């Protein structure tokens, strides 16, 4: 009972906050809503008996990455979107590029509907937690990452390194030493 209620509360928080991220005109509030959404997700991980993943979610996303986002938003002092621009950028009202947004949104809605109908078959398995012990044990988690998924792990780290080097190269203007 308590579990079901917490699930709906946390899932609701995550969904509503995510919707508000794109519904805000002020980028500052968007960042804050994204943090709230991460908090909801982390609560869901706790409900799944995965406290390590939950805390990693808070530390890495809400704690480190979002602080960086906030730093950038504050440094650029991004202005609020005004209403006229809002009309132009609105997916169903704007011309040209705006239509592409509408197309993407429609595609996403279809995909979401499909995923939800496809997932109904899985709901019978909810409640069985055969892997709870392995997921919550950090030792098991580490062993899994560095043996079974070792290649994916190393490949990801190289990918991140490449992205970082790329960002530095792009940010450097011509003529800078």
């Amino acid at each position: 009972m308590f579990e079901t209620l917490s699930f709906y509360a946390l899932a609701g928080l995550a969904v509503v906050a995510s919707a508000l991220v794109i519904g805000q005109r002020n980028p500052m509030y968007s960042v804050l809503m994204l943090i709230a959404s991460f908090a909801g997700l982390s609560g869901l991980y706790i409900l799944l008996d995965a406290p390590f993943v939950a805390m990693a979610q808070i530390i890495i996303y809400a704690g480190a990455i979002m602080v960086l986002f906030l730093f950038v938003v504050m440094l650029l002092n991004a202005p609020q979107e005004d209403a006229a621009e809002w009309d132009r950028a609105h997916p169903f009202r704007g011309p040209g590029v705006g239509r592409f947004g509408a197309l993407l949104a429609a595609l996403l809605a279809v995909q979401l509907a499909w995923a939800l109908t496809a997932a109904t078959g899985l709901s019978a398995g909810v409640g069985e937690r055969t892997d709870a012990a392995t997921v919550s044990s950090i030792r098991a988690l580490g062993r899994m990452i560095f043996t079974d998924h070792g290649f994916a792990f190393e490949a990801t780290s190289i990918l991140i390194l490449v992205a970082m080097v790329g960002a530095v190269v792009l940010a450097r203007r011509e003529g800078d030493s």
Partner: protein
Amino acid sequence: MEWVRPAVIVGMIFIVFNALIIASAILVYAERKIMGFLQQRYGPYLVGPHGMMQPFADILKLLFKEELMPKGADKWLFTLAPVLAVVTAFVAFSAVPFGAETTLFGLLDEPIKLGVADVNVGVLVVFAVTSMGVYGIVLAGWASNSKYSLFGGLRASAQMISYELAYATSLAAVILLAGSMSLREVVDSQSGTWLGFIPQWYVFLQPVGFVIYVIAGVAETNRAPFDFPEAEQELVAGYNTEYSSVRFALFPQAEYINMVTMSAVATDLYLGGWHLPGIPVWLGWLVFLGKISVILVAYIWARWTLPRYRYDQLMYFGWKWLFPASVLNLLATAAAVLYFNV
């Protein structure tokens, strides 16, 4: 006796909550008194015996002041920021254990653990919640609509990113040694002695890690010599320039509670928590209190002794010295754990 457990939990929350409030009042007094001594003057002297009622006079004064909000400030975030700062400060302490299990001299059937919550990833909980505390400062800086505040907030976010890496990496070395992320288990793995008189504290196995932890901890709590978000000589008062009354009071309170949490975690991780050779374990919470107090006095001492660094020096130091040092420390620890199979 079904009511005992919830009652114990509520009682523990009540005790910890009030202890933290009292601790911040004591720290205000201690800070002003120690600062006074270091500057060869008396410090607060007139309110109560030896000025001991000074913190209460301070908070009364702040309570009766007018709450101001600058024009053009973001109303919601301006109100939310100090609350966020102080709430995260209180919540962070909830995962910190401060004493061994006790039955209160046989009063209870089941032993209770001294500490609000015993979480199996306690180290991470404290780390996650304290890392959220920076939002209070950053938002205060942004919402004030003032350039000094904005600079304070910006500095807080940049400083926090630079130091959190070194901080987390030094924690990871201790977790490797203890083989557990539960703060209570980390403490209990430090209970014995070497050669009969050296306590088995991780500070002796992790001297480098301890130094990194303390430096990063000072930076995390925005204390001098790393108090750039405030930096009163350059930024008026930094992120809290536009704040007054109770809203203002919440910021220093959050800072003092964060100091207590930081010292408590340092005690749990490196200084053996409530263990001290020769002291029975039921007196452990007093030992714990003593160890925290020593660290806190050192904190205040450092603030009034060291001049503030320049901002770029802090970033340089954090990224180019502290972080590589903590990574090397972690690698060495991991190798040692594998080799000696501890």
